[in-house]
């Protein structure tokens, strides 16, 4: 058995926030996109960080009607929500607890944690055990598998010795190039072509982001240019897909981030190798298609993404 493919409702953001699709529409779409449902807590239900009884009823009724499976609840630790200071670990814990309870109430087996949860994970694990949840730190750029931060997260998981805590790799860390979408955003922010080209070159040369920022400032890049540069490094990582094998016992869910599909392929992310490794290591959980490109027909592009993955699965399970 290979892994299963579903969708995170984050993929439909452009239509959802412009009132084209309602939440119930998204549920119906998910039934044609693999049947696995991942939601982003503060985007998809009212009352965040709590889950109301009213939403529970709406959610479960639609799940049943469309034959869906809840896969992952996106929680937030939001350490910078106060203007003057960061949340203390106690405050972050208090903010996260209702999210875990809400996820369990809705029937989700997995909760995505931001890595900011590191100082409270020890306290969250017993709660996850009680609620029957598995928690996963999202490995989103710049958190590459090989990075010291991720190694620190893995050490913590080992020390806690609980299979309730794991990792959620985001496919954005397996990049080969910067997407056209990100370059277009840079242009829209008024960044000169010279700087765009230099950022692309520096990224390809695997320059550390601090050095890249120095270089951009030398070239006269303004604050917008620096922010955009950080966004590029915050979206595209250098992890080797084969490194998934090193963390195979920790993977509780996978985010199938993508920015475009061109001729049936994601040109900037190394999906073929990712799928091959997931099959090699016997990953049997869910992968959520997570579209984060420019506004488009998101249903259609998610469908194409899933078609690409299925073709790779067929290729490597022959």
């Amino acid at each position: 058995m290979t892994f299963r493919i579903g969708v995170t409702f984050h993929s439909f953001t452009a239509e959802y926030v412009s009132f084209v699709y309602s939440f119930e529409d998204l549920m119906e779409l998910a039934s044609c996109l693999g049947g696995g449902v991942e939601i982003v807590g503060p985007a998809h239900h009212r009352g965040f960080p709590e889950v109301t009884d009213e939403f529970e009823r709406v959610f479960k009724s639609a799940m049943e009607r469309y034959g869906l499976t809840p896969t992952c609840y996106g929680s937030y630790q939001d350490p910078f929500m106060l203007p003057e200071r960061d949340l203390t670990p106690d405050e972050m814990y208090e903010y996260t607890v209702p999210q875990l309870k809400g996820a369990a109430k809705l029937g989700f087996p997995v909760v995505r944690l931001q890595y900011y949860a590191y100082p409270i994970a020890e306290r969250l694990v017993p709660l996850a055990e009680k609620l029957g949840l598995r928690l996963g730190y999202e490995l989103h750029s710049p958190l590459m598998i090989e990075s010291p931060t991720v190694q620190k997260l893995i050490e913590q998981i080992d020390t806690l010795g609980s299979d309730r805590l794991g990792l959620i790799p985001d496919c954005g860390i397996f990049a080969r190039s910067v997407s056209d979408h990100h370059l277009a955003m840079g242009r829209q922010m008024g960044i000169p072509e010279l700087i765009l080209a230099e950022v692309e070159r520096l990224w390809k040369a695997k320059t550390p982001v601090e050095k890249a920022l120095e270089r951009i400032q030398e070239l006269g890049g303004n604050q917008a240019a620096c922010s955009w540069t950080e966004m590029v490094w915050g979206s595209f990582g250098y992890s080797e897909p084969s490194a998934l094998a090193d963390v195979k016992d920790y993977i509780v869910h996978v985010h199938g981030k993508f920015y475009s599909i061109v001729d049936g392929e994601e040109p900037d992310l190394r999906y073929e190798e990712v799928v091959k490794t997931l099959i090699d290591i016997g990953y049997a959980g869910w992968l959520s298609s997570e579209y984060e490109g420019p506004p488009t027909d998101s249903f259609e592009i998610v469908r194409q993404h899933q078609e690409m993955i299925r073709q790779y699965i067929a290729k490597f399970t022959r």
Partner: protein
Amino acid sequence: MANPVKKRRREQVEPRARQFVADYPIRPARCEGKEGILIRLLLPSYRSLPLSCIYGIDITIDREAVERNCTRLILNGYTHRLDELAALSTVFWFILDYADFFVERSLAPGLHTVAGRMLVVEPYMTVGRFPFIYEAERTLLMEQEQRGSA
């Protein structure tokens, strides 16, 4: 597989442009005993945020700046001064909910240009409290006098 929602609605389901100034008429209103107008706003993010993540809302009407102390943000029936937002970390603005922006001033019926900037922090970016600047501009209709209250 075909998009079932598209099939059912037989209409376009492409994303529409969203800006924080909503496409909704301006209405006359009374707020805290003062006469003024209401402009309908949306949160420019992909998710709900606590009001403490809103670092500023600056509006111009027909290119004329509105002073912040003449304004109120009305969300779910509660009225807030802009300088109170920083403390409101437990009041969430749901991503699909409209808020009303009260401006203490009069406005003639007819079309007006409402433009502005909203500064919003996504409270988890690795770079910290980096405010995203969202700009908006719309031509909105000021409704005929029809007293409502905020």
